[in-house]
């Protein structure tokens, strides 16, 4: 035998059907009960017709017999032929009435009464026949008087019989009427109780099912909250129906989320470890590489000063080159460390007056270069929300480059400004210096990449790498346009591009 399906495993559809079916089932029972009651209530009118017909048939049988008796009696006394005709007509009507009576009667007792009546009627007909026929050839052995008396007695007996039958018929009708009335009130009760029971069953089912549903849905809602906060989900599962399925999906999502989170944590830890290693590396570069350089520079100087007399020009030149190389390498290491520090430094955005910043940078840069007339155009009212320290370093590098590369221009000019591109502000630093070949634009922002020989323009080759890194850390973009001897322009943004793309 199959175990009955558990309530929790039923689908919501089945539960809904159950809620509807629960009041319908008793409703069906009460409908059938009502139908039975109605059937019983409609039965009496069907029997009332025959009952009335039997009653009138009884009355008619008796009156026909009275007519027949009167006709026979008149004929006997008056010899009137009309009286004989009335008698014969009455007798002729009798079988039809008796047949009608016979048809309408039911019940064993009534049958018995009817048989007795039939016998009495047959007797009466025989008596009357003798009275009527005895008149023309008078019957010697039955004097007319006696016959008349017997007829009167027999009629009286018949009257008694019909009366009994009548009363019985009336009694049956009364009982039927009573029964009909009782059936009616039972019907009312059935309907009343039935509707109450159905309503109650409906309410009970709705409360049970809806209560369960709302409780489980609120658990589901709490689980959704926990899912959003990344907490563990409420422990017991929520059954097998649609809500249960949703609950399972939530659990799966939560499990997935947690495993992803763990993965992410592991990866973050890995990255942090790598970062620490990198920091340790840059620290060791800072400390360990500079010490030998210091020794190279220091002892070369010693050679230069203490052994001046034993060195010839070529030897002194060689020592000079060694010292310059060592110092340059020191600068490169410092720049490299600056670059790595820029990547690690925190970025804090605040509103900056760029016009003022640029003016201060120009002042700074001009002090570090031999004085020469340069036309500088700074757009008034330049502003941006960015990291002031980093932006200053970036602009310093760009402006210093412009300063450097306009050294050979007849009328050197540097322009700093901005133009809108959609919602993004694009800043630019433009000069009319030597420029560069756009063919090498791709190498422009790489560390230690140089497009000019050191003899022409000194520099570590790391300045633009620093600028690009600062721009990238702001989520911006930097690009350059130039041609040889036609100046260069560096464009950059300091905010992420809008999601629509460039």
């Amino acid at each position: 035998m199959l175990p009955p399906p558990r309530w929790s495993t039923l689908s919501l559809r089945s539960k809904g059907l159950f809620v509807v079916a629960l009041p319908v089932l008793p409703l069906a029972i009460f409908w059938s009960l009502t139908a039975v009651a109605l059937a019983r209530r409609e039965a009496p009118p069907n029997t009332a017709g025959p009952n009335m017909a039997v009653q009138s048939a009884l009355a008619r049988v008796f009156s026909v017999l009275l007519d027949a008796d009167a006709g026979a009696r008149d004929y006997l006394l008056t010899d009137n032929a009309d009286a004989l005709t009335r008698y014969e007509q009455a007798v002729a009507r009798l079988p039809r009435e008796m047949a009608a009576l016979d048809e309408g009667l039911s019940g064993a007792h009534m049958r018995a009464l009817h048989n007795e009546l039939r016998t009495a009627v047959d007797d009466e007909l025989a008596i009357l026949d003798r009275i009527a026929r005895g008149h023309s050839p008078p019957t010697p052995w039955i004097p007319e008087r006696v016959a008349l008396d017997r007829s009167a007695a027999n009629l009286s007996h018949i009257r008694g019989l019909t009366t009994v039958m009548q009363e019985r018929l009336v009694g049956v009708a009364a009982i039927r009427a009573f029964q009909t009335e009782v059936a009616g009130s039972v019907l009312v009760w059935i309907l009343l109780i039935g509707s109450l029971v159905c309503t109650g069953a409906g309410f009970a089912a709705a409360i049970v099912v809806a209560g369960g549903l709302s409780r489980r849905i609120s658990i589901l809602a709490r689980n959704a909250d926990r899912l959003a906060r990344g907490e563990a989900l409420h422990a017991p599962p929520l059954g097998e129906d649609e809500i249960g399925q949703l609950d399972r999906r939530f659990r799966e999502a939560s499990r997935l989320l947690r495993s992803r989170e763990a993965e992410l944590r592991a990866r973050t830890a890995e990255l942090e470890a790598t970062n620490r290693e990198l920091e340790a590396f840059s620290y060791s570069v800072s400390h360990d590489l500079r010490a030998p350089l210091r020794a190279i520079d220091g002892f070369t100087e010693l050679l230069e000063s203490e052994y001046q007399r034993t060195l010839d020009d070529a030897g002194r030149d060689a020592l000079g080159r060694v010292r310059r190389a060592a110092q340059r390498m020191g600068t490169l290491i410092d720049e490299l460390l600056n670059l790595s520090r820029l990547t690690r430094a925190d970025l804090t955005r605040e509103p900056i007056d760029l016009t003022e910043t640029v003016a201060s940078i120009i002042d700074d840069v001009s002090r570090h270069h031999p004085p020469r007339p340069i036309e500088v155009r700074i757009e008034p009212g330049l502003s941006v929300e960015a990291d002031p320290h980093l932006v200053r370093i970036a602009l310093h590098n760009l402006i210093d480059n412009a300063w450097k590369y306009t050294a050979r221009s007849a009328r050197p000019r540097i322009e700093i400004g901005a133009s809108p591109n959609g919602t993004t502000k694009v800043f630019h630093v433009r000069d009319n210096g030597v420029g560069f070949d756009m063919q090498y634009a791709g190498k422009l922002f790489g560390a230690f990449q140089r497009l000019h020989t050191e003899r022409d323009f000194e520099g570590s080759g790391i300045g633009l790498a620093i600028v690009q890194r600062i721009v990238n850390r702001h989520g911006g973009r930097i690009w350059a346009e130039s041609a040889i001897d036609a100046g260069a322009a560096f464009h950059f943004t300091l905010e992420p591009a809008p999601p629509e793309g460039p």
Partner: protein
Amino acid sequence: MTDSSGKSLLLVEDNTDDLELALRAFKLNNLPHDVQIARDGSEALDRLLGRTGSAPLPTVVLLDLNLPKVDGLTVLKRLRADARTALLPVVILTSSSEQVDLVASYRNGANSFVRKPVSFGDFVVTMRRIAGYWLSLNQTPEPGDTSTN
């Protein structure tokens, strides 16, 4: 080894090249003072805290951070924790350019923090500025000693 002024300098340095360069820089700066040398942190602590009797403290200590055995920062902490050397001028002289080292040094009571430059010329100037400054002070401050002469 103590010269007539009674002023001396303790250089704590493990790198022989740096040691040689420092001595040369002193010479170039005409700082003819008594220069003592400790080759690691524990030797420096022995000289400063383990000294017996009336051996005088140096006027200034030039302390490297990256040292064998006991590192410079620990030496600094021990010196500041000891009443005899709590006020002894200590200049941190290091290759490091890290902000954390600078902050840690000053937090632990360094009087100055100097990064060793790569250029020997710059190094000579640096030595003149820091060692010369401390050595030119008339008196090493001793706890309880209020004399200014």
